[in-house]
């Protein structure tokens, strides 16, 4: 249910008359704060922001993303990261252990990488030199709307901890809306369904409790089969 503090707002809706409180998803005109996107209003004493319900992924430095190699070039790889901007992974950002570059990463390989930065030409650069980064050779990738990613992670990672703990599988969430799941197939099935529920109901409250219940009931169901 949507409580009054979190109502749905549309572009152009007046949120506040104090321009100093303007946060994400808002714009200020003539000293008034308006929403610029469709989303849920999150208003507090000091800040008013709009939590988006729809939209594309815009890369920012430090984000972990899941991408697919689209092109192999002489000094690296062009990667599709499910965003309006394509990304480039330089050869120097990959640890290659005595192999040819193409053997380590080839066309259509999926990778988990980290965004280093975006240059003024909106070219995104990636790195693989991080402990979460790796090529994906097994498991499953689930795609959701990037704006719902914070809900899948939960407050301080509570939702993701719940999924990992209850099901005992590996999960890596890309900020671009792609999620890698790996582990027992039946448990991954449950996790996948749970993620779709989270995506669909991201704008509602009490989601963590409902997911706990869902996983419990599905786990019992699977064992009785």
């Amino acid at each position: 249910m949507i409580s009054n503090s979190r109502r749905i707002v549309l572009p152009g809706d007046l949120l506040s008359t104090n321009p100093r409180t303007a946060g994400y998803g808002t714009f200020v005109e003539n000293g008034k704060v308006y929403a610029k996107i469709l989303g849920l209003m999150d208003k507090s004493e000091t800040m008013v922001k709009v939590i988006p319900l729809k939209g594309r992924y815009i890369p920012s430095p430090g984000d972990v993303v899941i991408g697919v190699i689209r092109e192999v070039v002489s000094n690296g790889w062009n990667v599709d990261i499910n965003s309006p901007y394509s990304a480039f992974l330089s050869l120097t950002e990959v640890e290659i252990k005595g192999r040819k570059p193409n053997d380590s990463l080839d066309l259509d390989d999926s990778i988990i990488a980290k965004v280093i930065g975006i240059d003024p030409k909106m070219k995104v650069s990636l790195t693989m030199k991080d402990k979460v980064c790796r090529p994906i050779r097994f498991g499953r990738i689930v795609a959701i709307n990037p704006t719902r990613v914070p809900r899948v992670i939960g407050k301080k990672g509570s939702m993701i901890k719940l999924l990992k703990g209850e099901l005992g599988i590996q999960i890596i969430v890309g900020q671009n809306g792609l999620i890698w799941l790996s582990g027992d197939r039946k448990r991954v099935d449950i996790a996948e369904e749970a993620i779709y529920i989270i995506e669909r109901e991201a704008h509602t409250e009490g989601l963590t409790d409902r997911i706990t219940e869902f996983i419990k009931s599905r786990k019992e169901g699977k064992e009785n089969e």
Partner: protein
Amino acid sequence: MSEFKSSEEIKLIVDGKRIDGRDFNELRKIKIEAGVLKRADGSCYLEMGRNRVVAAVYGPREVHPRHLQDPSNAVIRYRYNMAPFSVEERKRPGPDRRSVEISKVSREAYEPVIMKELFPRSGIDIFVEVLQADAGTRTACINAATVALVDAGIPMKGLITSVAIAKVDGVLVVDPVKEEDNYGEADIPFAFLIRNGRIESIALLQMDGRVTVEELKKATKMAKEAVLKIYELQREAIMKKYRTEDIEE
């Protein structure tokens, strides 16, 4: 147009009512549904009387061909197209003079409203398809495109809402049907930028035929009243999509 058929032959207004029984300031029945297409980022199906249109929005996404990219803004592309079966006599498929013009003016209505500076080098594509036409398709398409843009999560300064005013048998009427458009004296489509329930500016104004200055002023006033009703319906359509998602579980 009206030169060949005198208004005596076809009476468009009888006993103070219009040809389809509406009052002068009464809109046709409007039905709006948001998020009808699975593969589009945002979409909308809209019925306005016997007009039926579908709008789809894709983006922001990479622009192809590359040379169209703008290093400081997103490129907005608007395509208005009529299906061959949308009118009584089969229309030759593909863009023609008329649809290219409508695409251009509609795109120009959106350009100051969409915050394109947030997505440099990307593109936002808006496609509207007329499935069934009964006068005022450009206004119906603009109304549908607005809902689709909001549904796609595109940042905007407000909503664009559109309605046409026509002069038939010497009176101004809101939202004309085909007969009124064909045999009337003037047709004036309007589009307004609405922010927080208030009309901020005119985004589009065209005119076919002749009216006096006073009539144009009156038409603007009528359009403003009508447009606020449509604005509420547009909002309702988007809200409904997220409300039903609540009930699902």
